């Protein structure tokens, strides 16, 4: 079988960030150049004044590179549901950000075959001054839904969100829960070949949360390729065909969801 049949292939993905000290992301970018150019005269003068030898050719930049994830390789078949397990800060979100093209990797590569939709954001594209209805159109378009489709799904999205009564009120008058429900509802109606889902999105009271998880479950069963990040190990075991475990930025285990979850739970219990 060639890799042509894979929906997602990731090879050695890595993303590093500059931590501490400077706000510079890297030493090579335009920002660094401008920064040096602007600071050079000041430094020369201060050196002359204090009569010190320059310590190095370039200004010292405190801080260091930190790999959020590194060497992450895996592949996902078409129609397969891959669960991603890991602690907070392990790098799961960075991985989803890379695959959804919000940010680019520092090294490695990935290939996604098909249209990609992400259920990573709930209501972040909303604007407070616009009504719920206007925000559905806005958010839907930004997530990549064609306009006629948004119109067709409008009633369904509204009814899923359970904010019918306020749908023509500006969103700034909504409660936090209402905004999140509406946001999830838009994302849940995306129809793409590949779905990147973050379970954190299942929000609100117990009842709505259960509906969110049910919705994710039905997306997972619909034959789409799904990448599913979750902290709820029971849900993850039920939904996923296979799972990967990410710890401190590295992929350390891949296999049946039951095994991966067991290892994750064992490690969590130990630490």
């Amino acid at each position, binding site marked *: 079988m060639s890799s042509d049949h894979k929906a997602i292939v990731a090879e050695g993905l890595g993303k590093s*960030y500059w931590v501490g000290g400077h706000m510079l992301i890297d030493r090579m970018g335009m920002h660094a150049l*401008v920064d040096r150019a602007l600071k050079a005269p000041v430094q020369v003068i201060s050196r002359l004044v204090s009569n010190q030898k320059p310590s190095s050719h370039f200004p010292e930049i405190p801080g260091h590179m930190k790999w959020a994830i590194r060497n992450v390789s895996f592949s996902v078949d078409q129609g397969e549901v891959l669960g991603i397990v890991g602690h907070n800060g392990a790098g799961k979100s960075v991985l989803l950000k890379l695959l959804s093209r919000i*940010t*680019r990797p520092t090294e490695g590569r990935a290939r996604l075959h098909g249209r990609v939709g992400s259920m990573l954001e709930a209501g972040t594209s909303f604007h407070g001054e*616009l009504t719920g209805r206007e925000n559905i159109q*806005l958010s839907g*378009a930004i997530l990549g839904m064609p306009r006629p489709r948004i119109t067709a799904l409008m009633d369904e999205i509204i009814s899923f969100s359970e904010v019918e009564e306020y749908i023509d009120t500006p969103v700034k008058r909504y409660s936090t829960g209402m905004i999140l429900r509406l946001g999830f509802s838009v994302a849940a109606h995306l129809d793409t070949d590949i779905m990147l889902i973050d379970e954190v999105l299942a929000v609100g009271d117990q009842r709505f949360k259960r509906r969110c998880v049910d919705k994710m479950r039905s997306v997972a069963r619909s034959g789409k390729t799904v990448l599913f990040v979750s902290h709820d190990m029971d849900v993850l075991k039920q939904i996923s065909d296979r799972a990967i475990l990410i710890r401190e930025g590295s992929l350390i285990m891949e296999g049946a969801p039951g095994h991966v979850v067991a290892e994750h739970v064992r490690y969590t219990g130990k630490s």
Partner: protein
Amino acid sequence: MMIRGVLTAFKDRRETIYINPPSGIPKLELLEVWRNWDIILILAQRDIKVRYKQSFAGIGWAIIQPLLTMIVFTAVFAGVVNVNTHNSPYPLFSLAALVPWSYFVHAITKATGCLVVDQDLIKRVYFPRLVLPISAVIGGLVDFAIAFVLMLILLLFYDWAPNLKLLLLPFFLLFAILTALALSLWLSALNVQYRDVNNALPFFTQLMMFISPVAYPASVIPEKWQMVYALNPMATVINGFRWVLLEEQPNPGIYSLISVAVVMVALIGGLYFFRWQEDRFADVV
């Protein structure tokens, strides 16, 4: 077996997305921007709706600004200084410049801040980032249209007889849009890292107005400096608007080709610069 493979490949027209580290000269991928035209329009629509909610004068602001400027200019430059307007009434002469000028200032101001204002989007959703400055520049056209109606009313008030030159107006408008976009690409991308850009902008546009023929005719510039003067594309835009809307105005002249060249270089350079910087937006903003 092979035939089935070929058939599958033929049927399967889904796009493939490649994710790589940034390297070398970025691809412009303007086709992808075009495919996201929906987002451009809906963001422009959002900005217009939002701007005038909870505002008393509402969309009337698009008229108030050029109108008041025109009145002050008329009082100073026609009443006190007495500028040569090539036989046009001064209110018309200045408004013909203020309409595209207001659009330009409005568009670049909006576009410069667009990546910072919409940083939540940039950090959480993928779409071609070029959509944001383009949408800001396109959205400003609503204000332009309203100000242009004011211009038409004033023209009719002065017994205006339109002539064929008017057909050239869209070209000068397009040139104004491209000028605004070219500048916006640079300014918006720079503003992500250096918010100074946004702070310096009002000052910058004010200075630029002095070197644009808004209050005075371009013909007061000595001939030997006309070439340098044309480096500012807005000079050509304004000369063009005056020429097609008013009578007896000189045409923008051969030096407008310099303006065109400046805009083309700034636009293409700006597209590459924007795409080059784009990879850092989500991390830096």
